[in-house]
C-alpha cells in the first residue's frame, strides 16, 4: 500500500512538472493578452517533435548524447520564437479586437493546422527518443526505483523556470511592464506602453515554455500527432485553478492536478480523466478567482 502511495507521488510530481511548464505559459499569455490560445497544446507537440528530431540527428552524427539537454532548450526556443512569433504577428494581432468566440475558432483552426502539419512532417508513426532518460540513470526513493530524469531533473527544471519567471517579472523592466499590462491594459497604454510589443514578447515566452514542456516530455513518452490535445485541456484546468496570470498558482495547481491524476490512476482508475476537472471545479467553487487570483472590480 505505502509503495503505491510513493509511486503515485513520484508519478504525480514528474507529470505535474511537465504540466506546470505548459500551463504557466498558457496562464501568462491569457493573463496579459486575455486570449485563450487553443493552439497552445500544439507547441507542446512541436517542442517534443523538434527535440526528438534534433536528438535523433545527434545520434546519427555520432555526437555526445549529453548535448541533447542544451538541445532541448534550443528546440523549445526555436519553436516558440519562430512559430509562436509568426502566429502572434501575422494572425493573432488581427483578432484581438474581435469577440472571444472568433478568437477561440481561429486558435482552434491553428491547432488543427499544426496538428496536420505534424502528420505531414513526421508521419503518423510514433517517435521514441529516450536517450536522455537513460543517461541520468535511476534513483531509489523509499524502495521504489524511478528514473532520475523524471523525479529529479524535471522537477528541478520546473522549479528553475518558476524562479526565473519570478525574477523576470519582479526585477526586470519588461517583467514589470508585463505585470502592469496584465493588471490594466488601458492604463498601461495610456502611459505610453507599446502593448503590441508586450503581447509579442509574452506570447513568445508562453509558447517557448509550452515547447520546453514538450521537449522535456519527449524522452518519457511516445511522440504522436495530436499529443498536444490532452495537454491543452490539462493546462486550461491548471490555469483556471491557479487564477489569471498567477505563476505561483500555476505551480501549485499543476502539482495538485498531477498528484490528483496519478492517485486516481492507482486508486480509482475510472476517475483518472475526470480528476483534473474535479480539482478545478472544487477550487473554483470555493475561490471563483482561482487559488492565487485576486477578485478585482472593473475600473470605469
Amino acid at each position, binding site marked *: 500500500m505505502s509503495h503505491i502511495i510513493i509511486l503515485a507521488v513520484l508519478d504525480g510530481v514528474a507529470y505535474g512538472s511537465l504540466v506546470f511548464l505548459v500551463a504557466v505559459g498558457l496562464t501568462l499569455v491569457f493573463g496579459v493578452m486575455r486570449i485563450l490560445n487553443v493552439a497552445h497544446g500544439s507547441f507542446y507537440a512541436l517542442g517534443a517533435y523538434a527535440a526528438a528530431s534534433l536528438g535523433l540527428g545527434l545520434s546519427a552524427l555520432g555526437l555526445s548524447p549529453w548535448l541533447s539537454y542544451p538541445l532541448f532548450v534550443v528546440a523549445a526556443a526555436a519553436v516558440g520564437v519562430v512559430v509562436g512569433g509568426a502566429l502572434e504577428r501575422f494572425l493573432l494581432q488581427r483578432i484581438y479586437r474581435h469577440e472571444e468566440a472568433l478568437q477561440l475558432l481561429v486558435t482552434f483552426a491553428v491547432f488543427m493546422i499544426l496538428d496536420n502539419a505534424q502528420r505531414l512532417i513526421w508521419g503518423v508513426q510514433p517517435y521514441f527518443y529516450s536517450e536522455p532518460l537513460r543517461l541520468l540513470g535511476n534513483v531509489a526513493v523509499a524502495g521504489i526505483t524511478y528514473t532520475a530524469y523524471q523525479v529529479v531533473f524535471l522537477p528541478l527544471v520546473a522549479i528553475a523556470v518558476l524562479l526565473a519567471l519570478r525574477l523576470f517579472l519582479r526585477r526586470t523592466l519588461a517583467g514589470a511592464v508585463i505585470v502592469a499590462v496584465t493588471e490594466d491594459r488601458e492604463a498601461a497604454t495610456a*502611459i505610453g506602453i507599446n502593448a503590441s510589443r508586450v503581447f509579442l514578447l509574452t506570447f513568445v515566452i508562453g509558447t517557448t515554455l509550452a515547447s520546453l514542456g514538450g521537449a522535456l516530455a519527449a524522452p518519457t513518452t511516445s511522440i504522436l500527432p495530436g499529443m498536444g490535445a490532452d495537454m491543452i485541456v490539462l493546462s486550461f484546468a491548471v490555469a483556471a485553478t491557479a487564477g489569471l496570470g498567477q505563476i505561483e498558482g500555476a505551480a501549485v495547481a499543476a502539482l495538485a492536478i498531477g498528484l490528483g491524476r496519478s492517485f486516481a490512476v492507482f486508486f480509482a482508475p475510472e476517475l483518472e480523466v475526470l480528476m483534473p476537472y474535479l480539482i478545478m471545479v472544487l477550487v473554483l467553487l470555493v475561490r471563483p478567482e482561482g487559488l492565487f487570483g485576486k477578485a478585482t472590480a472593473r475600473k470605469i
Partner: protein
Amino acid sequence: MSALISARGIAIRFGGVVAADGVSLDVFAGDHLAIIGPNGAGKTTFLNICTGYLKPQGGTVQFKGRDILGSSPRAITRLGIARAFQIPQLFLEQSVRENMLIAAASQARRFAPFARLADIPERGDVEHLLALVDCADVADRKAGELPEGKRKLVDIALALALKPEVLLMDEPTSGVASSEKFTIMDTLVAALRERAVTAVFVEHDMEMVSRYANRVAVWSAGTISRQGPPAEVLNDPEVVRTVIGG
C-alpha cells in the same frame, strides 16, 4: 499668445444627451485652467476628447497647431498631453516606485527586456519626482495600499513622469479628506510649477478654483457660458445661480 490646446466647435451627444454643442476653448501655456459646471454637463467629456478616449461628432482639437482628433490615447500622450484620473489609474499590485519606473521608461521609449528595473537610467528622475510630490516615504509600498491622498499624488507624479506639456486632471482632490485637500493641492501646484507644466482641471470645489486657478471656464448646457479670471467669473450672478448654487 497662441494656444497649446485649441478646441473649436466641439459637438458630442450621447443618445439624447447633448454634452457639447459647439464648444470652443483654448488652453494657453502656463495656464492653470479650471473647468467648472453643473454635474453631467460634459466637463469630463472634454478631457476624454483631448486625450483621445472619445471622438466628438463635430469640431476640431489642435495641440500646438497639430490636429489630434482621431489619434490614439497613446499617440497623444507621446505628443505631450498627460491625464490624471478621478480614480487614480495605478498598477495596484506593484510598488509606487515600480509604477513610476514603468511610466518613465515608457516615456523614454526604453526597450531592454532584461534590464534590471532598479538600474534603468530614469531612476534618478523618478526619485526626484517622488520627492517633489512628497511621496518618497511610500516609494516601496504597493500602490494599492496607499491612502487616497497619497494615491492621488502618485497618480500626478506618474503623469509628470511622462514629461507632459499639459496635464489634464479630473477633480484632483475628490475623495480626499477636506483637511488634506489644500496640502495636496499646494504640493501638486508646486510640482506643476517646477516642471513648467500647463494644467487643466475639472473641479467642483469653488474654494479650490479660487485658490489655484488663474482662469476659469464655465461649462453649462453644452457650451462655455463664461470664461475669465476666477475673481470675475465666480462672482458673476448668473454663474452663482446655475453652477455654484446659492
